[in-house]
């Protein structure tokens, strides 16, 4: 690599890193507890507790659960109802003032499927704070898009770092840590080693994070194109005043997709469906198919199936990317590995910042030309 090329990549690496480091540290520090959000919620008592029920009791109708959720928050309307694969006794309900109210004010409450009694709010407590700081820093959509941009800048930093790995280590054995030299060199060697061994993981987690930051935009594209087309025959009609029975809706959706089970149902007017349809999203039972939900759209008033199209490829990509970002699809050992790799990323970020400051201090004591020559010498 020519000295000039190395210098250009060095400038790219320095500046993309400097711009994104603070936000990446925030993402790593909040992401670390989020890997274990299930366990932390359990430990802190933020998980719903099963209601006491008579032995041999059977599940109540979904209409009964829906009525209970609305009675619990008078004046609200239903937005979604969801089912957790690992908690079959529980139904999650999402209600708000209207279907288009600010999503941050949506009440998410779990109900016992056998008693229709509320068993706790979902997604609250310290893990919600972590999630908001991680996704949008409490700034709503612009905050999300900004975080997505920082994620992208971070990926440029990773790629430029990989390019610089060559001039910086080409005279060294793999994983060489030079102890006898300065503290700065010791940290440089660790920065290079931890950076290069985590590069694929970091690109995958970074890339899937960026994709998720823009998920709402992709959902909007789907709405404008496919959902509008499905709802076209209903154009000009008011939104259904009296909705079909939820049990009818779910029953019809499951008949249309044999072998799948419902993940959640979106009520007419919410972002996941048209203003005239229920959308039931059904999942399979493997790690992959349980994420790649299939939507069935049903007439809001009659509950008859209108369409069972697959999601477009860009939304499938978002869904498949989620486990690759969260690290929650390979059991506790994978979560622990995910956490350790996050710690490595924190060390790479911190040592990078240290190396930048240490190099500037060193350069401050020598003329500019010598300083520039030293970067090149170090890198060749």
């Amino acid at each position, binding site marked *: 690599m020519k000295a000039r090329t190395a210098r250009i990549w060095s400038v790219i690496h320095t500046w993309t890193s400097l711009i994104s480091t603070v936000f990446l540290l925030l993402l790593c520090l909040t992401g670390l507890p989020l890997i274990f959000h299930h366990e932390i919620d359990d430990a802190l008592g933020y998980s719903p507790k099963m209601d006491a029920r008579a032995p041999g009791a059977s599940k109540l109708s979904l209409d009964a659960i829906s009525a209970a959720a609305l009675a619990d928050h008078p004046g609200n309307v239903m937005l979604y109802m969801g089912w957790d694969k690992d908690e079959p006794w529980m139904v999650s309900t999402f209600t708000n003032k209207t279907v288009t109210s600010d999503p941050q004010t949506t009440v998410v409450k779990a109900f016992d499927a056998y008693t229709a009694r509320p068993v706790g709010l979902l997604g609250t407590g310290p893990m919600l704070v972590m999630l908001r700081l991680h996704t949008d820093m409490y700034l709503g959509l612009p905050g999300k898009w900004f975080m997505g941009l920082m994620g992208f800048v971070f990926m440029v930093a990773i790629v430029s770092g990989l390019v610089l790995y060559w001039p910086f280590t080409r005279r060294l054995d793999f994983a060489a840590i030079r102890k006898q030299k300065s503290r700065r060199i010791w940290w440089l060697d660790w920065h290079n080693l931890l950076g290069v061994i*985590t590069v694929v993981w970091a690109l995958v987690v970074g890339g899937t994070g960026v994709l998720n930051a823009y998920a709402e935009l992709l959902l909007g594209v789907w709405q404008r194109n496919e959902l509008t087309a499905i709802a076209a025959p209903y154009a000009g009609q008011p939104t259904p005043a009296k909705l079909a029975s939820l049990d009818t809706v779910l029953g019809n959706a499951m008949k249309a997709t044999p072998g799948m089970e419902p993940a959640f149902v979106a009520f007419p007017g919410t972002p996941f469906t048209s203003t005239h349809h229920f959308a039931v999203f059904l999942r399979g039972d493997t*790690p992959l198919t349980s994420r790649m939900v299939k939507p069935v759209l049903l007439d809001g008033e009659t509950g008859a199936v209108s369409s069972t199209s697959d999601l477009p490829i860009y939304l499938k990509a978002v869904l498949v990317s989620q486990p690759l970002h969260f690290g929650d699809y390979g059991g506790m050992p*994978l979560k622990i590995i995910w956490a350790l790799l996050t710690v490595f990323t924190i060390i790479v970020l911190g040592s990078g910042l240290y190396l930048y400051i240490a190099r500037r201090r060193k350069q401050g004591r020598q003329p500019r030309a010598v300083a520039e020559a030293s970067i090149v010498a170090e890198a060749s």
Partner: protein
Amino acid sequence: MNDPTFSQARRAKRPQWLRVFGVPIVIGVLSLAGLLSALLAGDPGRYFSWFGVGLPVAIAAWTYWRNS
């Protein structure tokens, strides 16, 4: 292994790019395979993911232990 002449002789046989990027490429491929296997290959895939994705942790631990 730590004999410098032996190490240099071993180095000379391999092209430089392979010496620098060889191990990182192997780690990267195994990481990616591990990330995907847990998603696509059921329980065996899940066990393999612990190896593939966990490899960088083992290498960092080994390097730390060797240098301390």
